[in-house]
């Protein structure tokens, strides 16, 4: 019985969700992007990358090769030293400070350390992303249970983050990233703190979200995940793109 309800909720959400995603071929475009933190410390060097709508791209590479810098450029936490970054047709290279919140409501981001607000419950953490966007009570009351059911955490909505396991916390973070029906979901080492079983759960949820039509950028150094996915793999080495394969494997 519960399963049926889940399926119905899921289908409704998928319909509502996919209908809202604009048709746009190139979701993320990086043209000749270089990022230097100091004169000598070059994090990214002349990166050219295009991610199409609905793609599931894994970005792999060793620690310190510039993967996290790439994520920071996508959510405008850092600005490129050179080159151009376009998200869904919006040039964010020189984005104004006051437009950054708008950008972040269109890109879902999840991190290795979950980044949940410790003083808020699961429900409040997810609702917060809607509240800051000025959404109405009624919408919040309908959207939050929907996204929580996608990640299977409806029954824990009154728990605080410290009362949850790592996998559950990451699922809350995913639910929170979905509330604005993002066109892009950027996952920066989402399974870095998780065991194999939880890792698989998170990856399955990401796949499910990708089926809705959301573009997924998965940054990881987990060999098993990448090899199982059999999707596009971009390998970064020392700040440059080392390889870009449509059905790739983890190299290096």
């Amino acid at each position, binding site marked *: 019985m519960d399963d049926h309800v889940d399926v119905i909720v899921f289908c409704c959400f998928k319909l509502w969700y996919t209908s809202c995603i604009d048709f746009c071929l190139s979701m993320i475009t990086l043209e000749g992007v270089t990022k230097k933190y100091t004169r000598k410390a070059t994090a990214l060097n002349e990166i050219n990358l295009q991610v199409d709508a609905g793609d599931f791209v894994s970005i792999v590479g060793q620690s310190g090769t510039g993967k996290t810098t790439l994520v920071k450029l996508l959510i405008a936490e850092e600005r490129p030293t050179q080159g151009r970054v376009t998200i869904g047709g919006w040039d964010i290279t020189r984005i104004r400070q006051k437009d950054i*919140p708008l950008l972040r*409501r269109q890109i879902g981001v999840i991190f290795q350390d979950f980044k949940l607000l410790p003083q808020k419950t699961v429900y409040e953490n997810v609702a*917060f992303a809607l*509240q800051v966007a000025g959404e109405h009570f009624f919408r919040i009351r309908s959207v939050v249970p929907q996204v929580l059911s996608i990640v299977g955490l409806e029954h824990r909505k009154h728990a605080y983050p410290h009362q949850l396991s790592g996998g559950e916390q990451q699922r809350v973070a995913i639910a929170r990233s979905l509330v604005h029906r993002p066109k892009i979901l950027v996952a920066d080492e989402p399974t870095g703190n998780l065991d194999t079983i939880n890792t698989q759960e998170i990856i399955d949820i990401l796949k499910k979200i990708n089926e809705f039509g959301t573009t997924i950028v998965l940054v990881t150094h987990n060999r098993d995940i990448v090899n199982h996915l059999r999707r596009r793999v971009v390998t970064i080495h020392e700040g440059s793109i080392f390889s870009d394969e449509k059905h790739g494997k983890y190299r290096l």
Partner: protein
Amino acid sequence: MLSLFRVFTFAIQDVLRNFSLSVMTVFILVLMLLSVNSLLVVRVLTDHAKFSIEDKIDVTIYFDNEANSDEIEEVQSYVKSFPEVVSVKFFGREEVIEQFRQAHQDNPEILASLDELQENPLGATMVVKTRQPSDYQKIISSLQIPEYETIIEAKSFADTEQAIDKINTITTNVERFTLMLSALFTVIAFFIISNTVRVLIYTQRVEISIKKLVGATNWFVQGPYLVAAFLFSVASMVISYSLTLVALGYLDPYISVVFGEELILTNYFILHILLIAGVEFIAVLFLTVMSSLLAMRKHLNV
């Protein structure tokens, strides 16, 4: 409107869920306000002491017993014409001799020798009070003109000159001291409050960055802290003022023994409640708001 409501809700939620931290902050604010209030008590007391000492000082002008009433009246109106003069009390010859007899009624020798004299040897006197102790010098020197030499027999100038000087130095020094102490306290209060707020914001830096990453505007991140600063200011103001009033209730009986007046301090703090509480509240609010804005600026750059 909706966002304002949410900012208030978040603020109250934050204050309650970080209860121990909120209590600590209010506690520090209360301590600072209490020390400011005790400084104010010191000021009120020194002012009062100064006033009551100054009230006891006066200059007495002794007229020659041959001076006629026209001349006396002229001097009187001349002295009264000074703006510094607060009051002039005149005692006629009869009054003076009566007072003299009263003062020496235990000494029959003096009274007997007074009786031996055929006429009243004492002249009329005039007691002058001025606004400031330093003004006496002016009054006294203005009476040292040749026309008045025959009319005025003596001035209690030489006796009081030193006392007046001393009181002047004491009061100016006390004023300078309390002013310096107030300045020092203000600086200390400023640093303690701004550092408390900085620590508070520092403990919240992760939350601030998360809120920004989720797409909150700066207003949404800062708003709750500003509302919390307002709540802290109100709470600390109310607590410190009530504590001060309770403490003064215990202190006043001892003070009234010294000055012979009831409830000096309590009355002062109740009479000036709007001024004191208002200024302290605005100062604390300004300090907490400014320091939280400054402390947050760094963490908002995400």
